[in-house]
């Protein structure tokens, strides 16, 4: 069971590195690309956890659609390098310690939690959840939240249309 462990830590490190790069780099496109790296590593982690459908949708929706739109808009606006102001320094002096405290907190809770089936614990991944089971749960048990979300998205699309329309 050594191979999943290697893949897990490789992807975990890659995801963390991508997240750090996302904040550090000053070119907006590089930030967007780092976020893509995070998304793809997370997708591989989902695969390890036995959720291939979620992994594929993660790549398809986040990396393939949303981030493409981000990159597209950045290209369209031809956004230049990010400028650092005096306020950015505050982020460094207050944000870093606060982030460290948050990390400690998460580590504390993880340490005291029950060992589950996560790959990092050395427990084998559960059998892949079938698409059929997933869609049955989504469209029977959780139909109302699903429809509510789609209506929310519809409202957002209509809002964008109204905002983009020229005044007659």
């Amino acid at each position: 069971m050594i191979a999943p462990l290697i893949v897990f830590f490789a992807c975990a490190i890659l995801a963390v590195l991508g997240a750090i790069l996302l904040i550090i780099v000053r070119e907006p496109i590089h930030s967007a690309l780092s976020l893509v790296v995070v998304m793809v590593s997370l997708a591989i982690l989902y695969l390890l956890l036995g959720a291939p459908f979620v992994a594929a949708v993660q790549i398809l929706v986040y990396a393939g659609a949303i981030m493409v739109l981000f990159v597209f808009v950045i290209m369209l606006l031809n956004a230049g390098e990010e400028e650092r102001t005096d306020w950015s320094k505050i982020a460094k002096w207050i944000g870093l310690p606060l982030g460290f405290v948050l990390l400690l907190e998460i580590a504390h809770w993880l340490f005291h939690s029950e060992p589950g089936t996560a790959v990092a614990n050395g427990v084998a991944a559960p059998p892949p959840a079938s698409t059929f089971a997933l869609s049955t749960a989504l469209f029977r048990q959780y139909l109302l939240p699903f429809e509510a979300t789609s209506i929310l998205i519809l409202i957002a699309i209509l809002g964008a249309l109204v905002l983009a329309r020229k005044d007659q």
Partner: protein
Amino acid sequence: MEFISQHPVLVVSLVKIALTLFVVMTALAYLTWFERKVVARMQSRWGPYYVGAHGLLQPLADGVKFLFKEDVTPPSSDIVTYLLAPFLALVLALTAIALIPIGPPDVTVLGQPVFAVSNVSIGLIFLFSITSLGVYGVALAGWSSNSKYPLMGGLRSSAQMISYEVSLTLSVVGVLLLAGTLNLSDIVSGPNGQTGYWLHFIPKWNVFPQIVGFLCYITAAIAETNRVPFDLPEAETELVAGFHTEYSSFKFAMFFMAEYANMITVSCLATILFFGGWLSPFGGGEWEKFIPVLIFGALAVYCLYDIATELQSIIHKLQFTIVVGLFLALAAVCFFFPQYAMPPFWFILKIGIFMFFYVWARGTLPRFRYDQLMSFGWKLLLPVSLANLVVTAVVWLVMHP
């Protein structure tokens, strides 16, 4: 030998990957030859003729030329993304091909299926998620060159690929409803697959109930691969060469190969989803092994006739003798190992027809204008594929109460 019997998955997978890569790379090279020859014939020209008999060594010469050209990197480019873009384009295009099954899943060597590099349970969604990342290669190439024409080309191309991806994915959902699975092998030969006949002679391919879906798919696929008549990203009269204007030498060749690899992928997908994949149109009887023998034999005879009458130089005659040998070898393989050779034969034949269709479109159709492209994609293709989905779903519900 002991190692092989102990690690069948590893060994068979590595051999499959190496073989697929070799075959696909060779196919990419010779697709350029095929395209130039067919377009030339449509325009009453000869096409490549002198490098090798009938220009057969032209792809090799082009490859060597690309390798030895000076590799110019624009000094003001964003170097990391500039180098990343062609790799991203080619790697993603080749990864997608690894998911394609070219034969039935039950033919095995050492207990491993031979005909697909990896048979994923959610193959179709995985394929779409990989191809959806292909936009990055184009967009990043356009942006990182730090130049006006590539930026415009990259912008156009990303907009086009995003727009047509919606219709591409929607047009396929009808087939998914019929098949009831996301696995590419099961879509062809699963319980709701495409084996069998209607009225004893029409093969049960999804193209017949899903003709609207297929037309939407093929239109969106041509747009998705940036080919004529949707090759706006590289409209040379307006944008020089579009997103890869600033790329030279082998980096340019990588974009070129990625484009052809994407063409192969969408053709494979069209074959699997709509045309019964590796299934034979005649039911797969024992006598069918004579069909490839007949086809390859006819090609060999044509080549022999060419050697005798047309070709002048002795080297060209020698090269064509090798080609004749190749055809005869292929015929022999199909005849003596029909179990292994027939499914790939049908599959590759169908892909070849799609490739010809691509080239045919290129030789025939004028390019769209940009606003026409956008309004066609959003106002015609998207509603039609949505309507197709709704009608398919309703009919399916009525037939399966």
